[in-house]
């Protein structure tokens, strides 16, 4: 039994438009008493859920080390090719040397990025996260090319439950680092 759209002719009363006008005004005035659903935007900010996909950022572990090991997986997966990585070694002088690699330069073009979150999904080090920054502004194209420092500043530290760096460092010091 199909469901067919009913088409009732208007009653005599309805042809005077009065019930519709009164009904419409009733709805309108009804909303005067209800709570407003709008947000006065720049003053009030919306609540951002935890897994929001905002601007991609680089994070550090609680010891202040850059987690990214410049494996370039995110660079390859990024659909609009917004990420450019220049891989490099960690300088000898640093206490983190011989543990892992680190990006010499890491750049994300926010005008190309489509905030898809694939980089966060593939990253084996949990080093890149799309966090809650949702308004990016700038006046030139160059300003939207976020460099490593800016990305790290936006990212901030995130807890790392794997202690991978500490383990690797200990292994390297006891002579079986094997890179």
């Amino acid at each position, binding site marked *: 039994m199909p469901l*067919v759209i009913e088409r009732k002719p208007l009653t005599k009363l309805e042809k005077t438009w009065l019930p519709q006008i009164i009904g419409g005004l009733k709805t309108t005035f009804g909303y005067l008493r209800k709570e407003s659903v709008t947000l006065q935007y720049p003053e009030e900010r919306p609540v951002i859920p935890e897994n929001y996909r905002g601007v991609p950022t680089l994070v550090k572990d609680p010891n202040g080390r850059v987690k990214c090991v410049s494996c370039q997986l995110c660079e390859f997966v990024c*659909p609009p090719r917004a990420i450019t990585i220049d891989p490099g070694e960690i300088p000898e002088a640093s206490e983190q040397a011989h543990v892992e690699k680190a990006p010499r330069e890491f750049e994300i073009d926010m005008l190309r990025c489509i905030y898809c979150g694939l980089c966060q999904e593939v990253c084996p080090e949990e080093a890149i996260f799309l966090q809650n920054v949702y308004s990016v502004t700038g006046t030139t194209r160059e300003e939207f090319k976020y460099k490593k420092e800016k990305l790290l500043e936006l990212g901030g530290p995130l807890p790392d439950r794997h202690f991978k760096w500490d383990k690797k460092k200990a292994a390297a010091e006891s002579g079986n680092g094997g890179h």
Partner: protein
Amino acid sequence: MNPPSETGSPSPNPAESPRYRTAGYDSDAQLLEVSLGPQHPSTHGVFRMNVALDGEDVVKLKPVFGYLHRNHEQIAEQVSYLGSMPYTDRLDYFCSLSNNWAYAAAVEKLAGIDVPERAEYIRVITSELTRLVNHTSFLGFMLSDMGAWGTVLMYAFREREKILDLFESLTGSRMMGNYMRFGGCRCDLPPGWLEQARKVVDGYPAFLDEMESLIATNEIVISRTQRIGRLPADKAVNGSMTGPCLRASGVNYDIRKVDRYGIYDRFEFRVPLGDHGDCYDRLMIRFLEMRETLKILRPALRDIPEGPVMDPKARQRNLRPPEGEAYARVEAPKGELGFYLISDASDKPYRYRVRPPSLINLTLLEDLCLGEKIADVMVILGTIDIVLGEVDR
């Protein structure tokens, strides 16, 4: 005779221009050629119509599209299978999760991947919520096209917002879901999501009643939609129209019923039909569809089982499906959305093709508009419910 001008500058005599089909008009009459759009607020984006008018009557109409062409299909042939998933969100940006499903289904068919039960439920729930979002905003835009500027749109957006909040906490983005993956969904539902969704679904009938009471008996709506833009069933079928517009012409064709894809055979719902095929039917069928959608959502939200949401064997990156081709389609809110893929066993599709419902429904615009008044063209275009992101790709 002049060659057809592609820029839309009026040719000396539009009546003779081969761009148009002639439709019973007095050829001695002075025709006026008007270019509507591409920046007209009622064309739902950058869409242009070249209309030839005899007085106020439309005698010829030519849709011009392509202003929003983004090369979606070619880009998808250059990136990996996973890489085009976020781009499918941007086809019909009101219905990103149905688009995700259609694309994931095509790749799953190609690579022979199974989907776990819970993920099937999540897919049905999210794409039916998408249908609510689409039809609700359709009502708002449609009524603004008719001149009820603002109010209805705000009421509609207030309701849509509640569902977008659900999407935001589930997928991390309000409109660009990028949520489905080959063999399931990206992440499980966050805690408390189901209760929140049940609350939204339970509150929806009240909104629909309010909206319907404001629209269904409104004199202006009735006189601007009834008997306007009639589309007979045979013409609709010949023009491969799908979705609510086809059903408003009285053709009982809903892919959820025809293909019974996913787990749609587990739900009781009816397919609403229209019997006049005019704008009023195309408008009111959306109300009935939303009410039927609620009938799917309630049991789905109740019965959703626990379990994994991803097939653990399914690969996302470096997916290399065996050689072959696959076409998968879903009943997107606007009609049949299909993805056609050919694999040559590499990590990129050899051919990637979208069958967008908006574009194919739009090809019937001229048939609907001939003989109508110029002011009704906007209403007719509104009832077809197009999104330019999908028309132009």
